[in-house]
């Protein structure tokens, strides 16, 4: 997933956007799907998307800043709809830090503020700044920042705990995504193995044309055979009429195709390493040594001859100056 980066005329990064394979906006390994910058390089906005939908569970999905660094908008989205259960889902501030608007949403539906006030006291929200924190009063600023966070009251220690928890959660979600990918990969490998075994068994039962069958069996038993079976399965699944709309089937089909290519590529690479490298090394060792030495001697002599000439020229130049 390569980011699409655009720049201002002055060369400063304007925006970095990540897209998934279908071309939909999507976060990339915990990084926001979209990050915008002001012409002076300061942060303008960050937004989290998953497969084309605004989505962030552990914080605001969209945050933007005024050019002076004061927070402009804080918006919470989950699954493409505005949603927050412990405070306003949309908060906007003026560039002097004063509150402009505050709106409450649950699952995309607007709800009155009283709904929250009755359930839980929501503190008045003050904007935070995206200016870098100085080391001197780091804790004080962190305290101030977190005390002003909507509906929360944190100390610096609690914030560090929260950051650690967020990090842990993002690691867990990353691992979950990886596990899903790995599950599809395992399914692809095991299914193609099973299909290959099934074909071999079928061929073994058919006793006619034994020479052809033996050669096909031998070919299927190689990595290239495995790759071929995988590719055929992938292409077959991709164009099976009723399965083209099924996401899981298509993902499995992709897995088959990629697995086929990767297995064939690895086999080719290994064969190249096994066969070509010894040939190259033997070819190199069979080259005569003397020629190489003579060339280098000639070069050295040539260089040695030119140096005095250059020095003489320099001397003459310095004398004339």
């Amino acid at each position, binding site marked *: *997933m*390569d*980011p699409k980066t655009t720049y201002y005329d002055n060369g400063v990064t304007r925006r970095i956007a*990540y897209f998934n*394979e279908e071309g939909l906006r999507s976060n*990339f*390994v915990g990084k926001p799907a979209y990050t915008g910058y002001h012409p002076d390089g300061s942060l303008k906005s960050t937004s989290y998307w998953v497969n084309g939908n605004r989505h962030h569970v552990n914080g605001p999905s969209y945050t933007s800043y005024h050019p002076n660094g004061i927070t402009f908008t804080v918006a919470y989205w989950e699954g493409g709809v505005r949603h927050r259960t412990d405070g306003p889902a949309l908060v906007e501030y003026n560039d002097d830090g004063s509150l402009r608007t505050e709106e409450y949403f649950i699952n995309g539906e607007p709800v009155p503020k009283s709904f929250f006030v009755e359930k839980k006291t929501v503190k008045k929200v003050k904007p935070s700044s995206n200016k870098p924190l100085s080391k001197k009063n780091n804790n004080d600023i962190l305290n101030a920042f977190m005390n002003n966070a909507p509906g929360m009251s944190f100390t610096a220690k609690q914030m560090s705990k929260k950051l650690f928890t967020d990090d842990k959660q993002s690691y867990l979600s990353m*691992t979950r995504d*990886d*596990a899903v*990918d*790995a*599950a599809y*990969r*395992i399914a692809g*490998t*095991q299914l193609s193995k099973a299909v290959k075994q099934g074909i071999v068994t079928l061929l073994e039962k058919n006793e006619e044309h034994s020479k052809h069958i033996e050669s096909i069996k031998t070919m299927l038993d190689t990595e290239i055979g495995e790759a071929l079976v995988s590719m055929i399965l992938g292409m077959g699944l*991709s*164009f099976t009429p009723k399965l083209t709309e099924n996401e899981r089937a298509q993902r499995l089909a*992709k897995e088959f*195709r*990629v697995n086929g*290519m*990767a297995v064939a*590529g*690895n086999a080719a*690479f290994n064969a190249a390493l096994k066969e070509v490298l010894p040939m190259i090394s033997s070819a190199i060792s069979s080259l005569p040594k003397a020629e190489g030495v003579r060339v280098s001697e000639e070069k050295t002599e040539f260089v040695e001859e030119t140096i005095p000439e250059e020095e003489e020229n320099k001397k003459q130049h310095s004398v004339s100056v």
Partner: protein
Amino acid sequence: MDWHKLVGMAKTDANKAAYRIASKQMVDAIKAGIISMMKANSSTSGHIESINAILDSEFGSAFISYLLGTGLMYAPNEISTDARAMKLATEFRVGGMATAGNAVIDSLTENVMSTIMSTMESLPSLSETEEANARVEPVEDLEVEKETELKAFRV
């Protein structure tokens, strides 16, 4: 069949496959490097040999792969902000998980299948069962006949 769609699909697949090949080859190379280094730098102690044996298995490959994938995530900023390095890191992690999963399934299939096969072999053959059934059938018939006779007598 849309030709452009097919070409686009092949390109995307080839891109993914290239990362997969790169990660596999890198893991193999690093594994071979570690094993040869351990063999060169140490005497043939039991621990080293057992570590070598583990590394030489698919679980070793999976472990190295996952370790590389996680390590790349926490590499210095120049690497961790490079999208290609992150994609490779994901590939390492997923590859590690998949290798371990496949190894577990393969070993399970191998062991469980052999157990099932030995259990099946220990069961009486179908011909014996058929003979037993043949012996049972007349007895059942006799019982049925007796019941019908009794019913007829009652009536």
